């Protein structure tokens, strides 16, 4: 009885075939090529390259700025989403559209604009630098660029969840004697935490691979403000293809591991939230 094994949803086989072919063409084959190419170095060469001070510094800069930017985005992205959902604002639609701008703007443009503003002679830079707080050409500048790039990810993941929250749940909490702060920490926050984590993961992933906007504001000083994607570009320009792929591979493994951790964390909060 072959019939009994049939799934209720038809087209399982074509759907699976399509998924595998599509993923292979776009993700698996390119990544396998990367892996193969990187195997042109033996283990000792891998180790020497990846532990060289310049590479280590680049990883440190990339990871720390991406994590910091994503964390800042979680806080202020939530605030933005909150304001957009909860308060009647004049020109709300305009603000709402502005959120998506970092998605659409060519990243190089963003980088140039930010550099122009935060450079020593820029609008803000001319006040910040005398205060001993240089932004352009430092890791701070990279963080600023990554905040700009990653902000819409947090807003756009949290916003719909905030919108769907049942106001009656908050009213119920108030009627049971909860203060405003308690309503937020005990009712609203647990409900939006999974979305916040998703936003964090997306902003972080975007930040760690960001190239266009960062290279202008970073100043790209080796050991100080050089990010991993730039290091890969440098290797390529020196015709060191294997070296470039090794760094790329290390970067891939590292970000994959981090995203996996965030996903597990997210699944855990979701289970705790009762939405199985």
């Amino acid at each position, binding site marked *: 009885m072959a019939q009994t094994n049939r799934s209720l949803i038809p087209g399982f086989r074509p759907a699976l075939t399509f998924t595998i072919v599509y993923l292979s063409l776009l993700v698996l084959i390119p990544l396998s090529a990367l892996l193969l190419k990187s195997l042109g170095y033996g283990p000792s060469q891998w180790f020497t390259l990846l532990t060289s001070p310049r590479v280590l510094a680049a990883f440190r800069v990339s990871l720390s700025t991406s994590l910091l930017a994503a964390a800042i985005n979680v806080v202020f992205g939530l605030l933005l989403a909150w304001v957009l959902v909860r308060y009647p604002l004049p020109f709300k639609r305009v603000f709402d559209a502005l959120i998506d701008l970092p998605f659409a703007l060519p990243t190089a443009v963003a980088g140039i604009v930010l550099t122009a503003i935060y450079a020593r002679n820029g609008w803000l830079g001319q006040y910040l630098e005398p205060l001993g707080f240089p932004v352009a050409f430092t890791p701070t500048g990279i963080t600023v660029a990554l905040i700009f790039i990653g902000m819409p990810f947090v807003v756009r993941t949290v916003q719909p969840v905030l919108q769907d929250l*049942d106001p*009656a*749940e908050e*009213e*119920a*909490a*108030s*009627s*049971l*004697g*909860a*203060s405003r702060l*308690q309503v937020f920490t*005990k*009712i609203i926050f*647990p*409900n939006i935490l999974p979305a916040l984590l998703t936003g964090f993961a997306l902003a972080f992933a975007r930040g760690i691979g960001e190239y266009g906007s960062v290279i202008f504001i970073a100043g790209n000083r080796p050991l100080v403000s050089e990010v991993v994607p730039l290091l890969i570009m440098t290797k390529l320009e020196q015709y060191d293809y294997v070296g470039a792929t090794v760094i790329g591979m290390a970067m891939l493994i590292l970000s994959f591991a981090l995203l996996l951790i965030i996903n597990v964390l997210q699944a855990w909060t979701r289970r*705790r*939230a*009762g*939405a*199985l």
Partner: protein
Amino acid sequence: MSIQVENISKKFGDFTALNNVSLEIPEGELVALLGPSGCGKTSLLRIIAGLEQADAGRILLNGEDQTSSHVREREIGFVFQHYALFRHMTVFDNVAFGLRVKKRAERPTEKVIKEKVFDLLKLVQLDWLADRFPDQLSGGQRQRIALARALAVEPKVLLLDEPFGALDANVRKELRRWLRRLHDELHITSIFVTHDQEEAMEVSSRIVVMNKGVIEQIGTPEQVYEHPQTPFVSRFLGDVNIFHGRVDQGWLDLDGWRVPAPAEAGQREQVAAYVRPHDVELTLEAEPHLPPATVRHIHHAGSVYKLELDVPARGTDETIEVEVSRREFQALNVSTGDTVYIRLVNPRIYPREDAAAVTVVSEIGTKSAQFNPQIANGEIHLAQKT
């Protein structure tokens, strides 16, 4: 805790939800706010709770003016139509919520909270569900948990907004009996909002009938059903047959068809007489002043039989709805097409313009009660014929 509502008005834009409403509810009563959708009953409940602010008027709880105090200071328990359980918390944590958010000085220990929560869960007969999440419960279970959660903080007043509105008929019936019993045990002043007259009659000790932002009548279920003060109340609480005519020397003259009028009816032109389906008596023998009628449909509605009659003396095509008990029906032993004679008992007489004004409203408000059964009857009848 007693509740006083003084001259409350509330507008939403151009729409007047409440127009100068005053109401007094003594301690320990279980009161129903009854009315069609949009009559302002939910707004009134939310204003009493403090979830909504009135444009004008005062709310006094236990004699104290609480008009501007926040909902968390009013010591009320509120039960929402769609339960509003905290989805991310277990049943236990939901019920414990009100105790856990208390200020440290007033907060009971976890041990006391645990005992109290289980007592409440036993009260609503759901202690075996303590570890579940709301998504894993049925609607009736959720509403009982919502009630347990509201009772946990020992509110002085319990406010229920269409508490059984989202449940199916059987569960609804069971839960409203249960609510009645619970109230008899706890004696907590309670108001519940409903658009279901049967529910209001069965559960409450007093009914407040509302329409278009004003109170039409306040009274016990018996008072509002047997002695409706306005045409609206007549129509909203149960089905009625409406006759037009005039009152003349002790007779109700309905377009040439004369019926003895109640003594207090006096002498009036242009009246509308409202007669409930069970207040139409049928007999097989011709008597003076009893018009003949033809049985058009017979519908077996469980405990009663519902008959639709054509009355040629009325001069219109409209049928009269009659309800007779099984025993009466068996004694009559009529079938479709037979002739019977009808006597109107206990007609309520209103000036015609009042009645005309209310018709429009009640057509919106009580459409299902007024029209659906007839349509359903017609379909059943046709189905049997073919």
